[in-house]
C-alpha cells in the first residue's frame, strides 16, 4: 500500500478532481483524447460537468461528443488506441456498459494477448453509477465484478477526490485498458487533492484499526467510515482498506491488514451474490487459513434489481448500521 501524501493539498470535489486530471493529462500528452455522449462544452461538458472545459481548451478534434452509440464509442476508442492515441471514453452510466460489452470484453481486454503483444489498447473507460437518486433498475448498478473476472482490463473505483485525480492520471498513462468507476452520489463531496498519481493495484488504509478489517471501495468506504465511528464509541477499532483498484486488487495489502486484525468484512454496493467480495473473502479464507479469529463476512446489494421507491432503495445497499451490526457479529 502507498504512503500517505505529503504535499499541501487543494480542496476539490470528485467532479473537479477528475476534471482537473483530464485537463492535466491532455495538456501533458497530445495523444490523450476524450469522447462520449455530451462530453463537449457545446453539450454542457458532460452531464455532470466532469469533462467541462476540455473541448474549449483542446478543441473538438481531441474532445468529441458522440451520437448515442456505445458500441461505436468503445470501438472508436479501441481503434484510436491501436493507432497510437490514449482515448478516455465515457459510458454515461454503468448500466449502459452492457451495450458495448462485446467491444470491451472480447476486444479491448483481449487484443494485446491475442496479438501476442503486438497491439495494445491503452484506453480509459469512464463510467458513473450508484444508488441514491432513485434512478431505479437500469441506472444504478455496480457491475465491476464482470470486468474483474475479465483478464486484460483493469478496474479502479476511487472513493475520494485525491484518488479520483491520481487514479485518473495513472489510468490514462497505463498501457492497458482501465475501467474507471465514479460514484454519482458523492460526486460533489469535497476533499483534499494533492495532485499526485495514485498507483493502480495499490489499496489505501483509509482508517487504521486493530480489531476488524473492512475492505471496501467507492461509496462503501464512506459507509464503512460512518460505521467505524459508531463502533469506536463502543471500543471496537476498525481498519478500513479502500481497495481503489478492484482488478488487479492489492492482495498483499488486504492480507496484511487481515493478518493484523484477524477479522474481515468485505462490503460492496453491487449485488452480494457472486460479487467481488467473494474473491476477496475466499482468498483471505484460503491464505490466512487457521489464523483468522472469525469467518470472513461479506455485505453487498440485495439480490434484486435496484428499486425505485426510496425506502426500498435505502434497503438495497449496505448501510452503516448493517456494517456495524456485522462487525459486532464478528467481534462475537
Amino acid at each position, binding site marked *: 500500500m502507498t504512503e500517505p501524501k505529503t504535499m499541501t493539498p487543494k480542496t476539490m470535489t470528485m467532479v473537479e478532481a477528475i476534471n482537473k486530471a483530464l485537463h492535466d493529462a491532455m495538456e501533458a500528452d497530445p495523444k490523450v483524447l476524450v469522447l462520449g*455522449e*455530451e462530453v463537449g462544452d*457545446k*453539450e*454542457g461538458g458532460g*452531464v455532470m460537468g466532469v469533462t467541462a472545459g476540455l473541448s474549449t481548451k483542446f478543441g473538438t478534434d481531441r474532445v468529441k*461528443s458522440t*451520437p*448515442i*452509440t*456505445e*458500441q461505436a464509442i468503445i470501438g472508436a476508442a479501441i481503434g484510436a488506441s491501436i493507432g497510437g492515441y490514449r482515448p478516455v471514453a465515457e459510458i454515461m452510466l454503468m*448500466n*449502459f456498459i*452492457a*451495450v458495448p460489452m462485446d467491444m470491451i470484453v472480447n476486444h479491448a481486454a483481449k487484443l494485446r494477448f491475442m496479438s501476442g503483444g503486438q497491439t495494445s489498447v491503452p484506453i480509459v473507460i469512464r463510467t458513473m453509477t450508484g444508488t441514491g*437518486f*432513485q*434512478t*431505479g*433498475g*437500469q*441506472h444504478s448498478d455496480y457491475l465491476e465484478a464482470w470486468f474483474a473476472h475479465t483478464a486484460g482490463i483493469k478496474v479502479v473505483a476511487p472513493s475520494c477526490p485525491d484518488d479520483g485525480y491520481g487514479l485518473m492520471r495513472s489510468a490514462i498513462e497505463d498501457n492497458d485498458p482501465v475501467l474507471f468507476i465514479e460514484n454519482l452520489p458523492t460526486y460533489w463531496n469535497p476533499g483534499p487533492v494533492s495532485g499526485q498519481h495514485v498507483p493502480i493495484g495499490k489499496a489505501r488504509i483509509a482508517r487504521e484499526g486493530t480489531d476488524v478489517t473492512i475492505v471496501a471501495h467507492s461509496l462503501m468506504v464512506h459507509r464503512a467510515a460512518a460505521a467505524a465511528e459508531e463502533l469506536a464509541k463502543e471500543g471496537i477499532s476498525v481498519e478500513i482498506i479502500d481497495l481503489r483498484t478492484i482488478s488487479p486488487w492489492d492482495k498483499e495489502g488486504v492480507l496484511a491488514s487481515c493478518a493484523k486484525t484477524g477479522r474481515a468484512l468485505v462490503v460492496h454496493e453491487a449485488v452480494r451474490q457472486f460479487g467481488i467480495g467473494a474473491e476477496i473473502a475466499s482468498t483471505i479464507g484460503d491464505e490466512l487459513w487457521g489464523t483468522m479469529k472469525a469467518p470472513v463476512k461479506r455485505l453487498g446489494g*440485495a*439480490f*434484486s*434489481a435496484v*428499486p*425505485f*421507491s*426510496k*425506502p*426500498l432503495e435505502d*434497503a*438495497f445497499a449496505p448501510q452503516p448500521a448493517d456494517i456495524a451490526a456485522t462487525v459486532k457479529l464478528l467481534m462475537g
Partner: protein
Amino acid sequence: MSNTPKPDAATLLAIWKKATLIKLNDERIIKQMMAGKLVMPYYSPRGQEIIPSALSMHLTDDDYICTIYRGIHDMLAKGFPLGELWAELAGRATGTCKGKGGPMHLTHPAKGMMVTTGIVGSSMPIATGLGWAAKLDGKNRVSVANFGDGAANIGAFHESMNMAALWKLPVIFMCQNNLYAEHTSAADSRVVDRISARADAYGMPGVTVDGNDPDEVYGATKIAIERARAGEGPTLIEAVTFRFNGHLLGEAGTYMDKQLYAECQAKDPMPILRARLLTEGIATEDDLVAVEADINGQIDVALAAAMAAPFPDPSELKRDVFAQDLA
C-alpha cells in the same frame, strides 16, 4: 399528405382531451417536484402530447406499446390509470409496479403497456418481439415501439427494423423526433436529415410527419396500423416535435439554440389545437374549461390517494425477482 385520412371533429376533440390530460398531468408533476413533494428523475414530454394522443385513436387495449423514460404521454394516451401512475411516481406500494419501477419503468399490461425502458434503443427489439407474438396470435394486434431521434443512431434500431421487415411483423416504429438527444442536436448525431429515410435500408415504408399536427399524425399512424393489421409489415414514422422542458427536469438548457426554441414555442401544439377546436366550432370555451377542470379533478384524486398510500415494505426486495419469492 393531403389525401391521407383525417380525424373527424369528435376524434379531434378526443385527441385534444388525451393531449390535455398529458399536459395537465405534466404540469402537476412539475409543481409537485418543485415543491419538493415528489422526488424522481423526470423527463417531461411537454410538447409531444399530440403524437400518442393521435396514434392511440387507432389502438385498442389489446395492442401493445413499448416506450422510454420520457413515455408518460404514451402511457396516458393509451389509458394508464391515473391512480396507479401517481402512486408509482410517489414510490408507493399501490403503484402499478408496487413502487419498484418508478417513472422510467411504467408498465401496465392490462392495457397493453408492456415495457418502459431507460436504455436508449431498447424499446425497439422488445416491441419487435411483441409484434412476433401478435403475429403468432393471429388476432390482428399491433405493437408500437416508441423511441427518440437519438435512438435512431444505436445498433438496436438497425437490428429491430431489419428483423421486423424481414418477418413482416405488425410493428409501428414511432420515432418521436424532438430535435435533441439529451444535449446533442441532430446535426451532431447524423448526417441525414430525415430519420424516416432510414426505412429504405430495410425495405420498409418510412414517413416523416409534423408531430404537432393531429391530422398528420392521425393519418400516418392510421395507414401504418392498418398496414400492420393487414399483415403487410412494419412502418417507420418520424414525428417531428419538441420537448419544452429540456431533457431532464432541472437542467439548465444552455445547449439549446435560442432561436430554435423560440420557433418551436410558436409551434406549441397545445394552444394551437385548443384554438382550432374553438375556431372550427368543435367545442366551446366552456366545454374545454369543463374538460380541463375534470382532468384536474382526476389528478387531485390520484395525487391525494398516492400521497396517502403506504410505501412498499423492504421485504419487497425478495419478491418479483423470480416467480417464486426469495427466501
